[in-house]
């Protein structure tokens, strides 16, 4: 019973903090607890009392307050790592496309993504489809496969902001795919860099 009580207290604190950060699942659970307590369910009444206690002892410090000494979840590269291991192609492509456009360090994002599922033609197509129509898809494939830095730099100068996002995502996915290809030995070094291919005598 005491153990159950401690669990309930800990859950109350977690629920309140998550709701304060905008977690809609937590908000829905709090509403449900309140409704059940109003109906007279004993366990819900107890939980509601703990929730109110916690809220009164720990008033909010403003919307969006994040405690500084607590880690509030996985970091960006953990999210990429998790997305890259998704077996389901549609979830994989949705997560990878979203994260690739948000990446601040494209090189690190590509290296992390390369450790996940092989970026097969099917997965590349699924990502490209999410990024837009035929024009955007062409841009995605061009940027994902181009190994000429000068051409890419010229292209980036004339692209609109939405195009830049697609180009960034494509560079990350394309570089990750090249790393996977070099690791497996099925991709020529020329795809990574013509200079490397020349130096290593390919």
């Amino acid at each position: 019973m005491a153990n159950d009580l401690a669990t309930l207290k800990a859950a109350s604190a977690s629920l309140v903090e998550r709701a304060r950060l905008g977690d809609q699942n937590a908000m829905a659970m709090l509403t449900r607890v309140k409704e059940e307590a109003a109906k007279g369910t004993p366990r819900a009444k107890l939980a509601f009392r703990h929730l109110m206690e916690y809220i009164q002892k720990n008033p909010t410090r403003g919307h969006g307050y994040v405690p500084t000494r607590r880690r509030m979840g996985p970091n960006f590269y953990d999210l990429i790592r998790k997305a890259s291991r998704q077996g389901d192609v549609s979830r994989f492509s949705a997560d990878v496309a979203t994260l690739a456009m948000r990446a601040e360090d494209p090189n690190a994002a590509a290296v992390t993504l390369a450790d996940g599922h092989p970026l097969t033609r099917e997965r590349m197509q699924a990502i490209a489809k999410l990024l837009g129509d035929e024009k955007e898809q062409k841009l995605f494939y061009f940027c994902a496969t181009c190994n000429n830095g000068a051409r890419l730099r010229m292209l980036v100068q004339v692209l609109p902001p939405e195009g830049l996002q697609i180009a960034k995502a494509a560079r990350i996915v394309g570089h990750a795919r090249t790393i996977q290809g070099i690791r497996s030995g099925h991709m020529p070094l020329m795809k990574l860099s013509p200079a490397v291919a020349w130096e290593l005598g390919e």
Partner: protein
Amino acid sequence: MLPLIPIAIVGLGGLAYWRTKTPHGMTPERKQIYEQALISLKDPEKLRTLGDAFEKEGLKDEATMLRKRALLREMPPEVRAKRQQAFGAAMKSKDPSKVEAVAMAFQNEGATGAAANLRKYAAGLRASKAA
């Protein structure tokens, strides 16, 4: 008897003028030529010729690097295959220090492009782990 002192003065003056007019060491133009050669010059003979020209200007390190690059294309096929394997193995590694060690080995052999790509990969590994 020739007046040696005026001749010596004129000679030294001429030498000083030549030294100030002809730039020595690494100038911005030479640096640009050197960097461009590392990226795009593929002919071993041209690399050696350029290396000799840099040597004459006292740029020994650059001359050595250009000569090393000339040698890269003249390696026997089995050595080339081993170098490709080493590069592939480094790209599989998850340890940035080991990748950087391989990058340094490639750099010392004149393979600056391979070294740069491995250093970039190692930087990606470090950033991914550190975050």
